[in-house]
């Protein structure tokens, strides 16, 4: 294959598809390379699709994209060992089209997105792993695949190769991931009859519920759990920072088993047939962990660039947006007949800085370190709040004023007055 392309996109996940689609629509000769049997076969996500990011790429995606349920209710649960306390927000406004977000099954969705990319004119080759970037000095001039005679050349390479970002690392563009900057998530998909899901979650039609959870389910580690409703299945998972997993002795699959047996969760998944177990790293290092995302003849998009907003559980929308903005930058340069130098590609970073992607990451830049250093937010507070709720709600002849005093005492005993103030300040700083 001595053929040369205008652009090579490595990977067919949300960021790679967004980039390849935009580039092909812009008239460039695009090759997209995917290592899986089909696009999606190597990809893992919860998964929630945020409509806005995709709408800006494919405005009429709702016509044929494989969507599971549109989300009308979000639950936030804080759990101790026997209880949850939390908020539920359900709105009929979210049940009005155009819907704002959907649950999806990535293997189906990525296949659909990649088909759109091909229809836009890009060439896709699957079952092909890119082993290395081809360099001419500092400049990336193509990729080396594991196919026979596997060198392929292009003016620019878009690295949409996911969180592990092996290609940029091997080329020396960035260091190895820090265990404190990635979360390891494990999840399962459980199949249940549609009627059962609708009855359990008070749903009808294609409406859906998502539950985000934190607290004792992560055993003091910094992390969260989730349960999403699909049409005929539920996905349930839990993720914690890898540095936390490393310093304790519980296996990820055991953590998920424990979570599944929690008395508030077990009845929701009861009777389901588990059909797949998946694991994935999520780049949650935030603003300060974003690597260099453009150089001579290359750009990084998606998870490889650490574009995940861990607080709001957003990632695929940041991935698609980064893919689109990178592609738009390349198209602008092509149109102006400017070379893909690091200097010219710096425009991509500026576009990202001006978008919600970097603005949101910047807003929460302190949050990872705050939660790392303060496990009480995942252990002490869920327990204290749960006990407080129980004290107030249990009717046992004790007067309410004494109950309130007991609750106050429990908080001070566990965290001290100073500790409570400090924790409030830390939370404010983290979310400011």
């Amino acid at each position: 294959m001595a053929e040369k392309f205008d652009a090579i996109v490595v990977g067919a996940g949300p960021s790679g598809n967004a980039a390849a689609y935009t580039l092909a629509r812009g008239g460039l000769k695009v090759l997209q390379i995917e290592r899986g049997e089909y696009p999606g076969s190597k990809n893992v996500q919860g998964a929630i699709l945020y409509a806005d990011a995709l709408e800006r790429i494919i405005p009429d995606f709702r016509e044929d994209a494989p969507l599971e349920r549109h989300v009308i209710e979000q639950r936030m649960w804080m759990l101790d060992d026997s209880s949850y306390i939390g908020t539920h927000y359900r709105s009929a406004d979210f049940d009005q089209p155009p819907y704002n977000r959907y649950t999806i099954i990535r293997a189906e969705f990525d296949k659909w997105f990649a088909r759109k990319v091909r229809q836009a004119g890009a060439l896709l080759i699957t079952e092909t792993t890119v082993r290395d970037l081809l360099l001419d000095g500092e400049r990336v001039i193509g990729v080396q695949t594991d196919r026979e005679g596997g060198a392929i050349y292009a003016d620019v390479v878009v690295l949409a190769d996911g969180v592990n970002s092996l290609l940029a690392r091997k080329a020396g563009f960035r260091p190895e991931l820090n265990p404190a900057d990635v979360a390891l998530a494990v999840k399962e998909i459980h199949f249940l009859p549609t009627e059962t899901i609708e009855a359990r979650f008070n749903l009808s039609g294609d409406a859906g519920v998502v539950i985000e959870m934190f607290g004792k389910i992560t055993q003091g580690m910094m992390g969260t759990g989730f349960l999403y409703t699909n049409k005929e299945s539920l996905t349930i998972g839990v993720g914690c920072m890898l540095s936390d997993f490393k310093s304790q002795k519980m296996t990820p699959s055991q953590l998920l088993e424990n979570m599944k047996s929690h008395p508030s969760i077990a009845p929701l998944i009861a009777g389901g047939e588990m059909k797949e177990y998946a694991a994935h790293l999520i780049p949650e290092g935030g603003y300060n962990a974003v690597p260099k995302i453009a150089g001579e003849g290359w750009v990084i998009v998606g998870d490889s660039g650490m574009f995940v907003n861990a607080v709001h559980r957003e990632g695929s929308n940041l991935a698609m947006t980064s893919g689109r903005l990178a592609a738009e930058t390349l198209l602008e340069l092509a149109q102006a007949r400017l070379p893909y130098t690091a200097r010219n590609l710096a425009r991509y970073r500026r576009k990202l800085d001006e978008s919600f992607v970097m603005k949101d990451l910047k807003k929460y830049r302190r949050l990872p370190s705050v939660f790392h250093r303060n496990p009480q937010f995942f252990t002490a507070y869920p327990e204290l709040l749960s006990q407080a709720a129980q004290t107030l709600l249990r009717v046992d002849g004790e007067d309410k004023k004494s109950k309130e005093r007991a609750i106050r005492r429990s908080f001070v005993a566990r965290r001290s007055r100073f500790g409570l103030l400090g924790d409030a300040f830390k939370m404010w700083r983290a979310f400011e």
Partner: protein
Amino acid sequence: MSANKVEEKLFQNRYRVDAGRPHISIKNPELCTNQCDQPCTVCCPAGCYTQEGNGRVTLITDGCLECGTCRVICTEHRNVAWEYPRGGFGILFKFG
């Protein structure tokens, strides 16, 4: 949970194993026995790493989910040689 249970989970998955060509290997097995608390044996979500009685670590990549955990946590010795499988091989997610 027993290793058994992870295997039961993995049994639900679809794989095309590249027989005889593991995509991950331990660079120097001696390093794992000395001054390392072997986090790979706990953190790998597929239980691919087993702590042996003689202090060694055994790696069988057939059930690998290709997440990258073992490579990232091996901070002491950087002792994991980690590549993606050949195109088309390895885990093939049905749902993802």
